[in-house]
């Protein structure tokens, strides 16, 4: 059982991180903390993807010496990491940064309007002003 858990440790880490993020997004009252939770959540996702591309003892997928007389060397797939998930994550990182950017901009708007980033205080202000 322990072996099973340990052998899949990358998944466990990502799940734990994801849950931390999810908790912060839902449970925290401070909007900045929610945003940080969202970032943790997205990082967990990225770690998950990165880890599924990894193989033990493998190297970066760059074919050395290709085209210099070694053409006939057999390419063993197991020797190289799978680059695709990593490449995908480049896009996902960009997406997550963009999301963070939009969220921060929104937070600035909120702060300007209510002078606070605590969710319950904002709700109270909105209630008091009758909106």
């Amino acid at each position: 059982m322990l072996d099973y858990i340990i052998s899949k440790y990358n998944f466990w880490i990502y799940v734990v991180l994801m849950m931390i993020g999810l908790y912060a997004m839902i449970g925290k009252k401070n909007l900045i903390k929610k945003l940080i939770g969202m970032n943790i959540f997205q990082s967990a996702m990225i770690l998950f993807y990165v880890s599924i591309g990894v193989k033990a003892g493998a190297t970066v997928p760059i074919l050395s010496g290709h085209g210099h007389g070694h053409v006939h060397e057999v390419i063993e797939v197991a020797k190289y990491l799978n680059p695709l998930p990593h490449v995908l994550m480049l896009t996902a990182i960009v997406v997550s940064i963009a999301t963070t950017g939009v969220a921060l901009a929104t937070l600035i708007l909120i702060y300007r309007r209510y002078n606070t980033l605590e969710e319950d205080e904002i709700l109270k202000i909105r209630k008091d002003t009758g909106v």
Partner: protein
Amino acid sequence: MAEQFAALIIVVPLISSLLVPVIGWGQKKLCYPWVVAVLVVPLICSLGILNTVLTTGKFSYRLGGWAPPWGIEYAIDHLNAFVLVIVSFISLMVAIHSKKSVEKELSEKTVPFYTLFLLLVTGLLGIVITGDAFNLFVFLEIASLSCYALIAIGEEGAPIAAFNYIIIGTIGACFYLLGVGYLYIATGSLNMADLANILPDLYHSKVILVAFAFFTVGIAIKGGLFPLHTWLPDAYCTAPSAVSSLIAPLMTKVAAYVMIRLMFTVFQPHFSVEIVPVFAILGWLSVFAIFWGGIKALAQTDIKRMLVYVLVAEVGYIVIGVSVANRVGLTGAILHIMNDAVMMTCLFLVVGAILYKTGTREIHQFRHLNKKMPFTMAAFTITALSMCGIPPACGFFSKWYLIQGTIEAGQWVWAAALLCSSLINAVLFFRVIECAYLKPMEPAYAHNAGETHGEILRDEAPFTMLVPIVIMAAGVIFLGIFSGKIISSVIQFAVPASF
């Protein structure tokens, strides 16, 4: 030229959206004609694509010439060609309509608005056209991010609503991404057609089940399916009217499209129906969505908020059509994607016009609106009747097929929910019609109203607003009358052949 339509439909709005700031830098007023002109291109492209699909069958476009499954492929069949036309047509209409309301509501932010508007359209079109699961995620996020920003520039509570939407929307997108990751672990592919070939051997794998669960929840969040809709009412209601009339009809419909695509193309109906009991769950959730949306809508006095809750119920309609998992039900669902998009657009455009002219969204202040804005209110009435399922407007026909589907599936409660929803809609919309067309009932008002009765002058919405409204209202009738034609020439091929 024709074979490049699939690329142009994405590339043109994308590049043009980046050019909006350049154009707006010199002359702000040029943004509007630019956007309208640009949006004609996707419409032409999508019609070209639909025509190609209808004449030669499905085809695919390889981006950069890379062969699938390595390269990104735009796989086009009847279903997404059909949805592409809907998306591009409605976005053009909303763009035409947006001129005055943007000038009034967002006078300082015209340039960023139109930039984001085009980006949003790009995202929506991309979601629909792509045949690659990861690419879909990217477009989904392009659409969502522009959506977040567009909502945040709205009225008083908009930033809060937008922030909530960001948080929940990100969860949805990440869940979708996780689903893609699990599928990739199991199959090593991201291409939908490729996945569809590999998956049947793996249907009993737990990895696939997990992936499926993540997909379902992720898309349900994006599409605002009960009980994951909580972000939706505030976000759509506080958005500027030009924004909500674009996202309210389209975002939910595109999410419904993704659901159909994943459940019936990537996974086979055999899996989605027999191995996982997902449709029983989704169907019952939709029933709750219909009632909850309807009841919440009844409690609203703000017409836009009312429409937003009606939208929640309408999402339930489509999902019921998917959940009955038979040919006629799915026909109804796809038909309703179109019908509801048209009806919702029309209603939101009308609300935008009323807000522009009178500055109010409170239903009880709509007195004499029929005299002030006769054409707008006529369009509203036609669409409202369609929402109540009165033939020959299009709402009746989607309801007809959906009910056929529930009968075939033996789901009587679902059928009852659909019927009750028409009645709830009748109450909702006739309340508005009464306020707008008839004298107020309160004697306190009646006195004043009686005096001003003869002096109410026509004060119709500006031409740029009226044209799209009238076109959409005419569409409501025409799509109803020609629904048979649409089904026999397009939709019946869009329904997966395995039914």
